[in-house]
């Protein structure tokens, strides 16, 4: 057991670091990091372009689409090094993490050459249009319609929870082309120009007060058949490829962690004593420390497997369940520690981080697969337990009860 890079990995890490040092600012320990909302998109696009020109944008992609054909471990090394610098992240993750792989697998060569480099470069941003008001965890229950009309398809319906739809250029879309077929058989997959006539984007106001998700309405939107990905009726199969990539892309919850809770407890008063002396606080900190390090060490085990050229085990599937719940608990702890004053909005960064954690964590427990869906996946794929009984099995989609 060791935590060292192989000589090749160390050299690669060095190359990453040298380039980053020349092109970005290291994260500062004192200063609050981040970028103003207003120019975040421009800053993010500029950084993505810089990375693209140097080959770092999608380093695991083949050279013809702008990558350097890097191995999985090299991709992790790059990401570790990049995270030490104050650079904009998050805007491109859905496009590059989910839409990119689907285009890579199902688009024509001509389309790949047209769209993938522009996606990697950050010139065009992509979003994912799967969930609907009546199709969340049961995403295969979606009802937006596609009707074939010569060489085109006419799309009508509504999508929801679409991150970044208001600034995206393209989206991947799964819709129902035949409601007379069984639920999983009547779907077809497309990519769509988000500027097409008939697409209307409305932001959703979240419990945090912010709006990072949207509703997207489709009214007689025309998509050429050439933008179909996979065969007619293969929509579910293509969507599953995307969702598997989502589960790799959606990982650790960002925000207040055990370190913040520990340092806060040391400085906070608890009935005239330091809060860190409180037995209940100490038990909670021990639990969070074990969870946080359990995830960190799980990641190291995954990297070890990749480093040896092996396929990692299913361990990483626990990440989001553990980290989103921990985030919620830590936010709760921070607010409670202020007693009645925990309600108050403040300029204090630490208090803000607890309040943001508490307000944001409910969303993280749902986005990218709810806790419950992820537990179904663990029990079925890892433990081999049977699927739950479905009431809609074998039924034509149009006959499935929907409650409305």
């Amino acid at each position, binding site marked *: *057991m060791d*935590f060292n890079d192989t000589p090749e990995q160390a050299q690669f890490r060095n190359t990453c670091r040298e380039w980053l040092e020349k092109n970005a600012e290291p994260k500062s320990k004192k200063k609050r990091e981040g970028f103003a909302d207003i120019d975040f998109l421009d800053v993010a696009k500029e950084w993505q372009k810089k990375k693209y020109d140097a080959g770092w944008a999608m380093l695991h992609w083949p050279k013809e689409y702008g990558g350097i054909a890097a191995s999985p471990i090299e991709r992790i090394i790059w990401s570790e090094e990049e995270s030490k610098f104050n650079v904009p992240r998050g805007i491109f993750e859905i496009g590059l993490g989910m839409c990119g792989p689907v285009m890579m697998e199902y688009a024509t060569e001509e389309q790949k050459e047209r769209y993938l480099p522009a996606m990697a470069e950050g010139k065009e941003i992509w979003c994912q249009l799967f969930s609907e008001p009546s199709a969340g965890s049961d995403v295969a229950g979606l009802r937006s319609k596609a009707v074939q009309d010569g060489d085109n398809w006419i799309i009508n319906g509504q999508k929801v929870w679409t991150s970044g739809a208001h600034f995206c250029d393209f989206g991947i879309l799964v819709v129902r082309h035949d409601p007379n077929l069984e639920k999983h058989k009547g779907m077809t997959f497309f990519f769509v120009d988000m500027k097409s006539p008939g697409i209307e984007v409305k932001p959703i106001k979240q419990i945090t007060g912010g709006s990072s998700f949207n509703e997207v309405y489709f009214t007689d939107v025309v998509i050429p058949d050439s933008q179909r990905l996979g065969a007619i009726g293969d929509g579910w199969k293509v969507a599953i490829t995307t969702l598997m990539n989502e589960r790799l892309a959606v990982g650790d919850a960002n925000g207040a962690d055990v370190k913040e809770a520990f340092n806060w407890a040391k400085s906070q008063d608890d009935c005239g004593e330091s809060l860190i002396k409180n037995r209940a606080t100490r038990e909670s900190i*021990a639990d969070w420390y074990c969870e946080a390090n*359990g995830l960190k060490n*799980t990641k190291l085990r995954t990297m070890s497997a990749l480093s040896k050229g092996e396929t990692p085990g299913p361990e990483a599937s626990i990440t989001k369940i553990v980290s989103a719940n921990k985030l919620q608990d830590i936010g709760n702890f921070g607010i409670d520690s202020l007693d009645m004053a925990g309600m108050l909005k403040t300029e204090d960064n630490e208090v803000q981080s607890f309040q943001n954690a508490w307000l944001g964590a409910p969303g993280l427990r749902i986005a990218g697969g709810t806790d419950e869906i992820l537990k179904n996946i*663990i029990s079925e794929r890892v433990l081999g*337990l049977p699927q739950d009984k479905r009431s809609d099995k074998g039924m034509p989609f149009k006959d499935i009860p929907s409650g409305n």
Partner: protein
Amino acid sequence: MNLDFSDDQKFLQSEARKFLEKEGAINRSRKVLEDKQNTDIELWNKIVELGWTGIRIPEAYGGLGLGHLELCVLAEELGRFLAPVPFSSSVYLFTEAIIKYADEDVKKEILPKLISGDIVGTLAVTEDLFAPTNSNINTFTDNKKITGKKIAVPDAEIATHSIVVSKSTSGTCLSLVDHSSDTVVINHQDTIDESRGHFVVDYNNSPAVIIGDESHGWDSYENLLNQAAVLFSFEQIGGSQASLDMATNYAKERYAFGRQIGSFQAIKHKLADMYVAITLAKSNSYYAAWALSTESSDLPIASATARVSSTKAYQLCSKENIQTHGGNGFTWEYDCHLYYKRSKLLSVNIGSLPNWKEKLVSSLEKSNTY
């Protein structure tokens, strides 16, 4: 980056698993429990023959001179099969104490006999119905004689020697005591898990040799626990995984309301929670194994993290294994209770969960981790 065991270590583990399976270790554990045999001497002798008691003992004393990582993989299998043997007492605690703290003469005398099985050791610390601390130890060692009473000492009957945490004229010390003296009186104590015997040991002016520093014995004891906690964690992971495997198999075989109970989300989510707990425990234990094998200064934090995660995992997995089995799980006939009881034995044996959480946070306060 390599947070994994080597191929040789994995081979050792699979051989250990085959051996314990062939020996029917789980049934042996049930027999020890039912007949109050305290330990399975036949299985213990076979383990000695395989050389497992000499794994960590340097070659100069006839041992294999291997590292702690080899012990970790064996511990996981001993835990999986509930082996009713004094391995943790004699190997993780007693042998390590001799290797770490005894002088050369004592090492020459004791270590070869630990390999041959002529000596079996245990650690005696608790004196009353609360956790031992540096200030509540009353057993006293003076002028090479020890007097006092220790309770809940695991495996003391098969043990030929004990290391006793005791007071000396200059502080706290570790005393080595030979049980063959008739001044040492050992009596069985009834417990809630008879698969490993526990005993009250009376030392009546018994011959004793102080091991290591005469005044800082409590620190030595704490260091021993930090090491042993890593190995206990692997036993706990083995037991947790066996409990999850048992529950998973039952959930596939058992039908209710016309279908496998493993198709109900109430059961699936319970088992997924067990998997999550085991994964956290395992990853933390791998890191602690690294810290132990490299004598990292991070060991106190790493071992407490592994210990807390593994104790939580085993407690969860063993109780929910019973729950998944319904009424059958509550019967003596099914093996569920063997894991449930062993999980408690292992979780209090070197200090309970709340005490290890406290150790973890104290270590964090002392370190500059954050």
